[in-house]
């Protein structure tokens, strides 16, 4: 009798241990992974520095053939939403930078996608007087991952980095910076029935071969054809076709301008339309 109650006690303790262990693992999940996608936070530096910008990135790896979408997914799909919070005092939500997406035209349906491995960089400045032992970075991520079929997904991953210890670093994402626009330019826009003229006043060093506009504003522009453009001195005029069923906000146009120069070099600019 005593022996069997002892056994039950041991089993109960084991079960409790397993429960605590699994729940601790869920609570401290550093990486999300399924057969289509993995999501984690990586650090560029092996050690955190107080009072300085520490560079990180959300690393998303997609299995072969699978893709997720840019902030403006295009004609179908859903935006990938990435929101970062930390245990720093007075820290608001951080949105990482989104690199330029891939342009896909599938039988006339245009989508702006990410495939393979993609990094979304962000930086965090830790105050000199930060009084905790660990920096906690929490990512809330939501996506739609598609191949032949589309599957929505979401996760919360948390990276806990002790301030005084060395951590594994990943500098791969620093190579991606050319696909993240750094310069911003203002533009003017004039809407007509089926197109809009976007005007930019800027001198460019090289001759432009091709222009593409990735609109952050959804539901306004038809991306099926490459826009025509004319360059008159420092005035770049881009002729953007509009969607047949325009539902977006024409009064708030933002996007990323991709310029391909004659030497095939590409340059990206954040574009904000002003009245």
């Amino acid at each position: 009798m005593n022996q069997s109650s002892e056994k039950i006690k041991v089993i109960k303790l084991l079960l409790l241990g397993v429960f605590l262990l699994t729940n601790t693992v869920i609570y401290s999940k550093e990486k999300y992974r399924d057969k289509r996608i993995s999501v984690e936070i990586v650090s560029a530096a092996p050690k955190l520095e107080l009072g300085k910008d520490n560079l990180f990135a959300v690393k998303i790896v997609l299995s072969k053939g699978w893709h997720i979408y840019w902030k403006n997914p295009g004609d179908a799909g859903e935006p990938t939403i990435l929101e970062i919070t930390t245990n720093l005092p007075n820290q608001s939500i951080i949105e990482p930078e989104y690199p330029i997406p891939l342009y896909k035209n599938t039988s006339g349906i245009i989508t702006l996608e990410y495939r393979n491995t993609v990094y979304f960089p962000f930086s965090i400045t830790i105050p000199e007087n930060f009084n905790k032992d660990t920096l906690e970075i929490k990512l809330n991520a939501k996506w739609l991952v598609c191949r032949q079929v589309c599957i929505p997904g979401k996760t919360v991953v948390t990276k806990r980095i002790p301030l005084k210890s060395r951590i594994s670093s990943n500098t791969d994402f620093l190579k991606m910076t050319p696909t993240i626009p750094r310069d911003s330019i203002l533009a003017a826009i004039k809407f007509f029935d089926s197109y809009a003229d976007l005007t930019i006043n800027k001198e460019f060093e090289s001759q432009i071969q091709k222009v593409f506009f990735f609109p952050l504003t959804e539901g306004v522009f038809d991306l099926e054809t490459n826009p025509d453009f004319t360059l008159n001195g420092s005035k770049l005029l881009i002729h953007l076709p509009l969607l047949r069923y325009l539902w977006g906000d024409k009064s708030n146009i933002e996007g990323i301008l991709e310029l391909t120069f004659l030497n095939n070099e590409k340059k990206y600019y954040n574009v904000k339309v002003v009245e």
Partner: protein
Amino acid sequence: MKKLCYLLIIFFASASFLVGQEAKIDETAPDFTLPDLNGMDVVLSDYFGKIIVLEWINFDCPYVQKHYESKNIPQMQEKYTKQGVVWMSICSSAPGKQGYFATGEIRKRIQQYNAKMTFYLIDSEGTVGKKYGAKTTPHFFIIDKNGKLIYAGAVDDKASTDIEDIKTARNYVVEVLDALLSGKNSPVKVSKPYGCSVKYK
């Protein structure tokens, strides 16, 4: 005789224009003919004079499944077809692509969801889908009694696959149909379509 020839030319030219034209809001909905599940041709213009709903469908798309598993769309189909609305569910998936099924499987799905569309039409070449600019499943187009396209967009404003969102969503299709049935103007003409891409060939 010469006059008759001119008239015939004008008639055929305008008819082919109507057949070949792209759908646009506030313009006459371009005509089409598509086979239904029984192989019978359904001609859109035969139903002009009634309110018509065109719903792009793909039973394997999670966004479509959200509205069918929750009975949201089947209940709308039942409610409005009882009031004389003609509901055409159109599948533009190409053979071999997601959402393209043999007719037996389509019948099974319709029964499973207790769907009440007037017609399930097969557009495997995608010509009607492209004419209307259908991009996603679901994607809705509503034609008024004058044959004019008066709405293009989503079923509602919650672009998710979560069934719970239906309760708090603004249902555009219901708003447009209720307005039309009570002789009012459509409160919304376009909205953001959401869902899977149409699997054209």
